């Protein structure tokens, strides 16, 4: 890290400037962290929002064993051995998570799953996975957030609540941010919010359009029709809760702005219609480019979930839900996505990196996770860690560990850790497991498919 950004004073207080907060997809890189090196605490997090403050100020290194095997304390080495044995002997291991760790760890994780012929998926499949599938169908018109800050004069939020989930989105990027062609901040922009309810993001909007639950697709499709000058039946209001006049007004604004943007959230990608909804909003933005410059971009939650998509894509060609059991990557959401694999009982082992599916997957999936040997890497003792065969305690990315994270618009940022940790990073643990599994596989006599012992056991 740059020496210029660190200064020590007598009380062993350190200041780290330009640190990045990894709480959400905004990935704000302007944190000024004051660190009490003796107490190993972050005492101030200047510029952090309420979520970022929660992340930094509550950070505490718990005194836990380096690993737990079946709930009993173990050394790192024992944990690595156990994890390697599980993976080397598994026939259909499922790897999942990755949204709260560095790209360096994600890269090693994909290397490991490639070697053992398993399946890998990230939390993308339960947030904007459908948007990734929509991209494959219709493409997208997108931009980095700075271009939006500098140029956008029409900003439409749809199916998301950044005021609560991405608190600095308005101030840094899209509403009150001061840009090159938006010197008067909000005065230079029209803000529209489309949602099924009045969220805390609505007050900042100039126009709020309340759509009936489950009618986003119909509303988007009607808007597309209007953009293309087609007739739309006024009865559309009964279905969508939005009058034709309101739609026409919005369409005029969209066609006549100079640089428009549609930010959309899981209100589209994770409700009825899923990838159809995402495809509809991406198409709407693309269509509008006949008239003006228009962008659509998803709002992503976890700090480095975008990095997970990006890494898995460059290594395999596909963004999530990738299986290697034939010795090359195959992509099939629904078949190779984690919640489906677990719920169906397909996976015979699991590795969960920096995620807690044990707290948010379906009961069927969790029930299966309890039956199979699971490996978990996390700084905290999560629900998933509690049901794991091997649970590693790892250091916290962005606070203890440096590396790369990708912002939701694909801008890569190098993290600036501020505190040492006695625990290894995710990357180090995955590398150690990789090395041991490689040894085991290289010396194994029979190939996996013809292992009689396992057949008997089954």
């Amino acid at each position, binding site marked *: 890290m*740059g020496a*210029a*950004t660190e200064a020590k004073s007598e009380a062993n207080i350190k200041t780290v*400037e*330009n640190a*990045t907060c990894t709480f959400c997809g905004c990935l704000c*890189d*302007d944190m000024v962290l004051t660190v009490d090196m003796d107490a190993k605490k972050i005492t101030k997090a200047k510029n952090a929002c309420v979520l970022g403050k929660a992340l930094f100020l509550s950070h505490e290194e718990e005194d836990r064993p380096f690993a737990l095997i079946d709930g009993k304390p173990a050394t790192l080495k024992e944990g690595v051995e156990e994890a390697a044995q599980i993976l080397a002997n598994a026939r259909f291991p499922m790897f999942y998570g990755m949204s709260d760790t560095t*790209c360096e760890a994600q*890269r090693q994780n994909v290397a490991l799953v*490639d070697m053992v012929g398993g399946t890998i998926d990230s939390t993308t499949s339960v947030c904007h996975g459908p948007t990734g599938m929509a*991209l*494959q*169908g*219709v*493409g*997208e*018109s*997108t*931009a*980095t*957030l*700075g*271009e939006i*800050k*500098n*140029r956008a004069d029409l900003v439409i939020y749809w199916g998301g609540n950044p005021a609560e989930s991405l608190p600095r989105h308005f101030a840094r*990027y899209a509403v009150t941010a*001061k840009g*090159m*062609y938006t010197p008067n901040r909000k005065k230079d922009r029209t803000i529209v919010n489309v949602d099924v309810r009045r969220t805390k993001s609505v007050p900042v909007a100039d126009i709020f359009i309340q759509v009936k639950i489950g009618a986003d697709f119909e509303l988007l499709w009607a808007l597309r029709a209007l953009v293309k000058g087609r007739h739309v039946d006024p009865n559309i209001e009964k279905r969508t809760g939005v009058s034709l006049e309101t739609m026409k007004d919005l369409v005029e604004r969209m066609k006549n702005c*100079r*640089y428009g943007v549609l930010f959309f959230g899981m209100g589209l990608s994770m409700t009825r219609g899923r990838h159809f909804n995402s495809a509809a909003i991406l198409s709407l933005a*693309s269509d509008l480019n006949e008239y*003006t*410059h228009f*962008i659509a971009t998803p709002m992503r939650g976890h700090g480095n979930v975008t990095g997970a*998509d*990006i*890494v898995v*894509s*460059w*290594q*395999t*060609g*596909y963004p999530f839900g990738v299986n290697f059991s034939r*010795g*090359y*990557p195959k*992509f099939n959401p629904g078949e190779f996505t984690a919640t489906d694999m677990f719920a169906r009982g397909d996976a015979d082992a699991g590795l969960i990196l920096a995620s807690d599916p044990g707290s948010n997957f379906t009961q069927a999936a969790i029930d299966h996770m309890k039956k199979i040997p699971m490996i978990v890497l996390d700084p905290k003792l999560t629900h998933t860690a509690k049901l794991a065969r091997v649970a590693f305690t790892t250091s916290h990315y962005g606070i203890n560990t*440096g590396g*790369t994270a990708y912002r939701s618009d*694909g*801008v*890569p*940022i*190098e993290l600036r850790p501020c505190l040492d940790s006695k625990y290894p990073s995710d990357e180090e643990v995955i590398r150690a497991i990789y090395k041991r599994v*490689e040894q085991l*596989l*290289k010396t194994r006599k029979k190939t996996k498919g013809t292992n009689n012992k396992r057949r008997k056991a089954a």
Partner: protein
Amino acid sequence: MGSTLRIVNGRVYDPANDVDGKTRDICIKDGKIVKSVPPKTKCIDAKGMVVMPGGVDIHCHIAGAKANIARKLQPDDHRRDVHHRLDLKKVNTRSGTGGTVPSTFTTGYRYATMGYTTAMEAAVPPLLARHTLDEFDDTPVIDKGFYILMGNNVLLYQMLQEGRHEEIRNAVAWWLNATKSYTTKLVNPGGDEPWKGHRNATITQLNDKIDGYEQLTPRKIITSMVNTVEDLGLPHPVHIHCNNLGHSGNYKTTLETMKATGGRRIHITHIQFHSYGGKPNENPTSKAPQIAEYINNNPNITADVGQVMFGRSTSMTADAPLAWMLTRYSNDKRWVNADTECESGCGIIPFAYQEQVYTHALQWAIGLELFLLSKDPWRMVLSTDHPNGGTFTSYPRLIRTLMDREFRKQQMDSVNQKAVAKIKRGHHMEREYTLQEIAIVTRAGPARILGLKNKGHLGPGADADITIYDEHEDKELMFSAPRYVLKSGHLIIDNHEFRNNHEGKILHVAPGYDEGIKDVIRPFVEDFYTIKFDNYAVSDHYIPRHEVVPTAKQ
């Protein structure tokens, strides 16, 4: 691997050292070519084989944000072309997918198995340099570098508008250092401002005023960058993708651009796409003879062809208005646009070149015309603008098309005949490239144009990047499957088999600059970008293996 090796009995094609098919020994020590090695050194017997330096790709799109969106976009392109991992007990490789935009590991392996050992990614927005370097770290075997997009950089616009030339030079040098890149690239200079800021317009004339900048024209941007790069003494000159790519009648813009540099060095990339006659929005004609003649007569100009190959391609470019224009001609509904703040645009569409389509057949033929009319292979080198004109894996087929008159004629007869009729007939159509000329356009030439003194030749001091081919009548077969490939002295392909993995290095420049320039760039970044200035520059973590290629002043 032992650290010494001798290749004996091979017919050596090393044009940079005037070796044209003579039988010579090549000695290797510690990854470099040396004059001699001890007599008992391990030998590769290359009897009946052709020995060349490893291939050097001067212009391709293989890594970074744009390539990765193109990968994500096209699962259909990957599923039919997979890359298996090899037997772990023999060599630990990674699996991947191919198609027009292969995954990173597959990209590295496929270049290597084709005998190419160096490749340059041609268009990276500086803000996203980290992404390209991350992918490079996962692109095995080959050495690689990249060019940063500087033709639509808003801060440079402001400086140029005010005539702050000294600051421009320092700023460009800072940017090259901050991104660990190899040179600057201009793509449709001046075109992004109207595209992003004026409802998807573009710019068509070198003397057109750029939106919002009274004093600026594409011509001024081009001449400023040509001068800047020459002043900095970069090993490779400005890499220019001219205005009006793909538009009928654009050859005038191309000629004007070449003339605008006043005798200074420039490299015009994928020049085939810039050699069209005809009127805008009508069918193109060929102006390859005019373009080839100008280049033949002006030694300050170098070019790569950007050959179109029939079949699937992915059009991906920083020239966003071009991709938008192409959506009209594509039968694929997918279109991607991606703006990078203050620096670049980007457009991606899946595409397919078809023999029976007039324009596609003409583009293919124009590329061949340029090759066949070129009098100096050192200055008109081979590329397909991978994956825009075709993929890099189609190079062997292109080589055969150049070397084999009959093969070329067969193809000419099977494509759209109206297009073929537009091509100038003459003695040049009978030309067959020799092995020595192929060695120039695929290795020695690109290396010389790039200023890579250790690449593209087999003299002492060169990197031991060597390809050994079985000599074969079918040149496509010959060039697609070398018997041996060495990278930095490591035997990667041994008797056609992939035997060793290897991590290549990053090639970049580090010109000097006045530290004071940071105080000029800093406030601009803090105001109009969305990351802190102190987080902009790429740290050394991202280039674990690298080589600084010196500038003329270093």
